[in-house]
């Protein structure tokens, strides 16, 4: 894309992205918060696309949809009043979080400004998927394999968290398989 077109898409998309992110904290509904976060992250995917990084953009669009929806239902499952009928405030510990936010923004801004970015512009039809593929399968092979192991660890961790007791079940009261742990009056 030409620089002009990139700029025309880039800046409004960034604005929308930030607006959606702000809305996440204004709303009191869990479902809305999760879906707004999805909107923000999806628009971020569009920003990647505007910058010519198609693979990253599509990947962002693809992965965020599934994962943010999963986040929505976890929020609906764990939070009281997920519909926001009571008008809960999403922000907590305001002073400290504001301080942290300002500090992080300043730091990242400094990084963005001070870094000596490469001058190369990713042009139209740049073979980004191929390039990433050769990188991942060739030079960065070790990190690729390491990522595989990390994902395995994530799966094991997730399964452990989801099924706390594993296949044997928790020795909790009310569990029929583990009657010897429950108080005698419940057994009758």
């Amino acid at each position: 894309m030409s620089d002009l077109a990139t700029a025309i898409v880039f800046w409004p998309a960034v604005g929308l992205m930030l607006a959606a992110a702000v809305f996440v904290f204004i709303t009191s509904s869990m479902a809305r918060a999760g879906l707004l976060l999805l909107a923000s992250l999806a628009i971020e995917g569009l920003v990647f696309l505007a910058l010519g990084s198609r693979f990253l953009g599509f990947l962002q669009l693809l992965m965020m949809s599934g994962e943010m929806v999963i986040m929505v239902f976890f929020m609906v499952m764990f939070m009281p009043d997920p519909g926001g009928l009571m008008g809960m405030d999403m922000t907590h510990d305001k002073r400290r979080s504001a301080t942290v936010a300002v500090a992080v923004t300043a730091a990242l801004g400094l990084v963005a400004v001070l870094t000596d970015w490469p001058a190369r512009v990713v042009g139209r039809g740049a073979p980004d998927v191929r390039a990433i593929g050769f990188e991942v399968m060739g030079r960065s092979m070790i990190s690729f394999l390491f990522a595989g192991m990390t994902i395995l660890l994530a799966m094991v961790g997730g399964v452990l968290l989801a099924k706390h007791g594993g296949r044997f079940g928790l020795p909790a009261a009310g569990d029929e398989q583990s009657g010897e742990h429950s108080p005698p009056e419940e057994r009758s």
Partner: protein
Amino acid sequence: MVLASAARSTASPALIVPDEQSWLVWGFDPASDGLEPVLDWGAVRGVLVPDPMPAVLGAPLAACLSELAPTAPVMHRPVSELARSVAAAEEDVGHGNDRAHDHANHRHGHGDHGGGGDHGDGGDHGDGGDHGDGGDHGDGGDHEDMMAITGEPSGDGLVMESIDVSLGPLMSPMVAGLVAEVTLDGDVVAQCTLRALLRQPAVRLKPGGPPPDPLEPRAWAAVLASAAAAGEPPDTAGVWLRMVRVEIERATSHLAWLRSLARLLGWGELVKATRVAVAPLLAAQASLARQGGADRVSVGAVAIEPGDELAAVRELELASEALARLQRLCAGRRLASRTAGRGVVGAAEARAAGLTGPVARASGVGGDARSEDPLYRELGFEPVSGQGGDALARTLLRVAESVAAVELARGSLAHAYSGRPGRGDAQAEWVTLEGPRGPLRARRVGDCLRVDAPGREAVLRVASRAAVGLEWGSALVVLASFDLSGWQVGP
């Protein structure tokens, strides 16, 4: 915090549209100028009924209207005004096309009588002379049959809020007269309460009139009426023909139930297969009953023209072939994938609860009233028995009973025309008949027929227990698999 009965249908008022097998109530919503199925009868603010009321609406409507009478005004409208909307709604129901965009947009330009309650008197409902048993029931709250089974709390310690959903009383797959109040924990049924709104009707015997109990569209009651008439002197052909009639009714009832199950499952092929199997049965029925009015068989001096006899034989042959195909379809893994292992009622539980009829036979217990009948014995009748007691067993048992019923009908039709003597149960006080949902006992009291169905309360209790702990879709399948009927299980 329980969000009790959180969202309600704003159907206000409701328009009653008869479905083929049960009744759907299509709510009329002035805001959207369209119709939608009413899920929650309690939210109905008024009832729009055609005037004059079609005979087929009959008792369930009358009973429900009397339930509603204190809160809901009943507005009677000329049929001509309602015809368009009824036709459109019926068309959509008939398609069996449950896709959302076909389903939710019944739209008809009759918004002008949405808000007007000018005939708003709840008193004069259900007063057609031919179905005047509406007054026998629905006289207060004392006849509600309520059973609540509480489910286990969810195992992983999360505190959850439940969702309350209310289904019925006029909605498929719940047959008329039942209300199911379901409490959901996530999408799993935590608690299920089934209530029957209808009192057991006394069937009025009226020669020459329409079927005495319109609650059963397939006119099973007409069969009962003819059974009650068995106290009259037996007739050689008459008893055999009664048997033909009974068995065709049985097969038709089972197939109508199967069709509603197929709709619940969204299985187009099975819907079509049941339609194909029912059509020749209805044709056979019609050709046999041609002498005695639209929907009855006259017992006694039956004069049947030779052509009718041949037509009935031919149609029963067609039905037999269609049922064989249907049985093959049901025997496959596709039906089992939704029904096997769900809603299991073990033999011990069925015996303890006192279940009767196909539901009990599917659990391997309970007999069949037909096996004591000498006429059936003469035809080599063997009660169909199932095993497993799950939703699949109940379905397969009904399909097998339909097949057997058509064979029995063919056999007894042959006997009727070969002049083989039959013997009626002369002068018995109670007439016992194996109905599609279990034994029915009928007794004549004056010109009325008192009907008693042993085991009818047990089904409600067992069904609501069996639905607990299942995912919503499976729970509905299990509830449907009991073939509940407000008519039979009513108090």
